[in-house]
């Protein structure tokens, strides 16, 4: 697409999204804020899975790290929304470095298993560290995030929506810029042909770790939004079902795309809320069916990449 047309399209979408507080009622606006947060996290997972060729089954751990970090910051340090966001991102980076340092040394199925294990261990850690996280009951009593006085002018829901939109737009923009940067191209190179990248002098493990850190930091930012929206976070926020939900968003939106998973994320969160009265806890059945249908009928780039990776190895 012509870059100028693309620029106009992005501006138009942002403009339409920005006027939503004047169109939607508070309930729907709140829902859309949540959808945007999950869309951002799905895009970060697509960056890892599609662009980096690193299939993670434990991405919700980053949601949890971001959400708990933001929540704990809100309770003990500052009510400032930006401050909480920055702490969450920093926590996401640290967590990505700690786990990714091991994970990127594994290949193929081992990466899949390792990330799945990290996801489950994160849930266990959140459940058992009762003193810090509140255990099974979750972290409650979190004060509302202060939105730079914006909520004095408009209702809090609208102010929060704008804050979420800004964070998601910036996070998504960062993902796109990084994907197209020299580092992003190196990440794609490490996915396509590890041996050649190494021969060219790239530190392949380091490049992969960078991809994990980028995806983790962006996902943690989404997690902070989830916590700020509900002023609550519990181990259920990071359990494996959430990782799977994020993966369904990626499969549905297209593994090679970043915008696709973002849109699919918003759509699935809205769909889940709309059907919740009719479906109740049967939503997971729908999620499983969607997952199976996506794998059967929507083959995307990933298994192609996978085959090429297997050949390269």
């Amino acid at each position, binding site marked *: 697409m012509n870059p100028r047309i693309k620029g106009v399209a992005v501006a138009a979408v942002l403009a339409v999204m920005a006027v939503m507080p004047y169109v939607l009622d508070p309930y729907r606006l709140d829902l859309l804020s949540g959808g945007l947060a999950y869309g951002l996290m799905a895009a970060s997972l697509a960056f890892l899975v599609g662009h980096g060729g690193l299939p993670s089954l434990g991405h919700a751990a980053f949601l949890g790290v971001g959400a708990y970090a933001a929540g704990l910051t809100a309770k003990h340090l500052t009510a400032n929304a930006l401050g909480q966001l920055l702490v969450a991102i920093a926590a996401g980076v640290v967590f990505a470095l700690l786990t990714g340092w091991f994970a990127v040394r*594994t290949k193929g199925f081992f990466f899949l298993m390792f990330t799945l294990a990290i996801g489950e261990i994160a849930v266990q850690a959140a459940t058992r560290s009762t003193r810090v996280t509140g255990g099974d009951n979750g972290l409650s009593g979190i004060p509302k995030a202060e939105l730079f006085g914006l909520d004095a002018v408009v209702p809090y829901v609208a102010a929060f929506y704008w804050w979420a939109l800004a964070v998601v737009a910036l996070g998504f923009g960062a993902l796109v810029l990084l994907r197209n940067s020299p580092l992003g191209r190196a990440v794609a190179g490490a996915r396509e042909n590890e041996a050649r990248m190494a021969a060219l002098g790239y530190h392949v493990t380091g490049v992969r770790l960078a991809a994990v850190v980028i995806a983790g930091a962006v996902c943690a930012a989404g997690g902070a939004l989830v916590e700020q929206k509900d002023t609550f976070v519990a181990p259920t926020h990071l359990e494996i079902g959430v990782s799977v939900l994020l*993966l369904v968003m990626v*499969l549905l939106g297209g593994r090679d795309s970043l915008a696709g998973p973002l849109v699919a994320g918003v759509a699935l969160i809205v769909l889940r809320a709309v059907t919740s009265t009719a479906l109740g806890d049967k939503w997971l059945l729908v999620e499983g069916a969607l997952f*199976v249908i996506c794998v059967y009928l929507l083959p995307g780039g990933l298994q192609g990449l996978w085959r090429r990776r297997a050949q390269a190895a």
Partner: protein
Amino acid sequence: MNLLVTAFDGIAFGALLFVLAVGLTMIFGLLDVLNLAHGALYMAGGYLALLIIGEAPVSLAVFIGVALLAVVAGLVLGGGLSAAIRPLRGRGHLDQALLTMGLAILLSEFLLQSVDRGFHSLAAPIGLDGSIAGSYPAYRVAVIVAGLAIAGATFWVFEKTRAGALVRAAVDDPEMLAATGVNVRRVRLGVVLAGCALAVFAGVLGGPLLNLRAGLDTEVLVLALIVIVVGGLASIRGAALGALLIGQVQTLGVALVPELAAYLLFAVMAAVLLWRPAGLFGRTA
């Protein structure tokens, strides 16, 4: 003394993990499919028993009957799984793994919908519900014995029988095996069926040890995965050693340092991956 009891609990848990992990590791070795539905199959065994006999203790004969029924259910589910994966053969291994994940969600949600999401536990069968040597639960000893028996049988089948030789050959060099006139596809099907049957059986065996509840499937799946990451893929010896190690780490960890138990598992897995990236008994590709 208390620590010794906990360590013994760990052996029982390890025996259970072995029954689960051995199928997972062999299915992977033969088909290159990571069966992420293995935890859901375990869960199916537990809920099947719950639906048939409820939470009250039953006689040993009935319990064994249910366990055999679980084996049959495992064979059926394994056949279904094998049929579901087949269209994706040639589409790459990751898609197959993702498909099993989707099927796992469907299966476990179906089970939770047909019972409920709350906690349930099976009672140990009459005769094994008492304790031996003072106060140690007899059922746990029975689980250890069952685990040992299954481990022994698996080793015997793999090392001493023609069927086992075919499976080993199919792991090492499927093309050459096919060239000698063996139907490799049938060998693969056999391993999937056996692995799934063992997983569902493990669900009945573990019913009196681990509470049935929502999320159980991922919990046992992850533990089984850690076992084969530690032990090495497609290695029975690795699965046995890994299961014993993880059984101890998890049980002792939860008993001694409950807040750190989760990190302990991670530490063990990370240490093994650093020391021997292919697992303790894994082959380096």
